[in-house]
């Protein structure tokens, strides 16, 4: 039963969802299933479409893409999300899994430095979400081994309080699968600091931070937002948007590894 289609016509359901997600016809009277609806209530169809639109734009902007919203404003983020979902109607059962292609969509849309930053930041947001929602099979309170006062979770929104148990717990779970890949990448770079990645309550791995990113990492660790840190990196490195992008991506990769930043010996301290 569960895999067989019903033996009767439920076409109105397809029409309803296709119309809602198409987002190109806000006129309920023009909707294909309007003929199924009582005339005096057809105009209310728009309420369903508006609710769907709000869910895939402002709801995602407020949560998953919070950092994008802070930097670019809810109006622009919502507008771009609406454009994305119009082209790519959602198939994912879970709403937060639906915009996985959003960064690629943004990259295809824009050529400016700001556009590249937006795409990078959207990718950061998705990685951060994965980190925060990663499964911790041990179900332990992760703060037992390391004093919180010596930790910061590097995330695109560094102002997120690092002491929340689930953030660290999730970071540990996610770190385990990412650590090796990051280590392999970072050995070719000039290391100026380290991320201390905790993949279990007792196991630590060290990830190198290239010098070009150290100012950005310090900026983040001191509580600056990602946009401020990117500006810091930009001014120090005198780099244009194209050269920033791979650096940002590397830092994002570090974040994805669940980077618990603990007393990183950056700069002069490192050189000594």
């Amino acid at each position: 039963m569960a895999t067989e289609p019903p033996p009767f016509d439920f076409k109105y359901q397809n029409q309803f969802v296709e119309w809602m997600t198409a987002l190109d016809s806000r006129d309920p009277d023009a909707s294909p299933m309007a003929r199924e609806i009582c005339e005096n209530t057809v105009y209310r169809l728009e309420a369903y479409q508006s609710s769907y639109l709000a869910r895939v734009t402002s709801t995602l902007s407020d949560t998953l893409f919070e950092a994008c919203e802070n930097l670019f404003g809810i109006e622009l983020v919502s507008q771009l999300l609406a454009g994305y979902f119009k082209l790519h109607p959602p198939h994912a059962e879970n709403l937060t899994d639906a915009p996985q292609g959003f960064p690629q969509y943004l990259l295809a849309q824009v050529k400016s430095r700001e556009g590249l930053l937006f795409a990078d930041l959207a990718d950061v947001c998705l990685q951060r979400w994965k980190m925060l929602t990663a499964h911790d099979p041990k179900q332990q309170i992760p703060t037992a081994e390391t004093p919180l006062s010596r930790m910061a979770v590097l995330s695109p929104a560094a102002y997120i309080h690092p002491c929340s148990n689930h953030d660290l717990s999730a970071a540990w779970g996610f770190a385990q699968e990412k650590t090796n890949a990051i280590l392999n990448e970072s050995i070719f770079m000039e290391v100026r600091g380290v991320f201390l990645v905790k993949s279990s309550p007792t196991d630590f791995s060290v990830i190198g931070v290239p010098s070009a990113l150290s100012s950005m990492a310090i900026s983040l660790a001191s509580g600056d937002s990602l946009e401020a840190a990117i500006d810091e990196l930009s001014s120090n490195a005198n780099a244009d948007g194209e050269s920033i992008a791979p650096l940002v991506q590397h830092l994002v990769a570090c974040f994805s590894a669940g980077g618990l930043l603990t007393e990183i010996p950056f700069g002069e301290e490192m050189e000594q």
Partner: protein
Amino acid sequence: MKSATFDSWGVGLRAKHFQDWHAASSIPMLEIMADNLIHHEGGPALWHTSRIVERAAAVVLHGVAMNIGGTTPLSLNYLAGIQKLIERFKPLVVSDHLCFSQAAGLQSYELLPLIRSRETLEHVIERVDFVQQFLGHQFTLENISAYVAYKDNSIPDGDFLSEIAYRSGCGILLDVNNVFVTSKNFNLDPLDELKRFDLNAVNQIHVAGHSLKEDFLFDTHDSQVCTDVWDLLRKTLETFEVCNYRRVPVILENDNSEVILSDLLNELEAGKKFCLFGTPGTTSESSGRPTANGN
């Protein structure tokens, strides 16, 4: 059920209140959202929920994505996720909505109304049977708010759900706010509509807030419950007491990200007093809503 004498009034557990619940000295019955705990193996939400629910008076499990009235094959992964949650939390009630939410391979993330016909009824019963067999647990369906009416609707809302419950053995989650909203949207009397539901099959009740959208009511869950809805709940509970008194879980839902937990619990307490004791003077004139101890 964790206690034979549990307080059957509770609230929906939301992520924004996790820290407050951890710090709370006592926790009432909670409704947990299955959809927040199934994907990504539960993630941090499962960690918090597990620890909070350990101290809760009782728990009920609620979902939004079963798509029980849809034509897309039921997701076996989703059902397996529900089954794991049943084993883990041993909820009193396992519920979702009588609606469809996906079609043509697309997700709407909305609760969309079904055409209430004999065909749909047979289709839903067949799917409910499958769900109950899969889960090894009674399944419960909630009536939704509707804003449009189909020309081919041939069975009233309450009769429709009641027949599904009678023939499949599923329970009814009676959302009193949804009865109110739908009735008002189609110029029907809410109490008359409520009486169409088979109260003997009701094993859980919802109350929530709604808002006015142009000239119709919209189920938003983002405001306090209005007096009319509390009054409708009071009459429902009176009916229970007269015909067949049972402790039916009553859950207050509020998805407003700004709402403070203490305010939510105060609202629950005020509504409870209003419904159970008709406490005089508990209705705020300014808001038209019951308030705890007149505060």
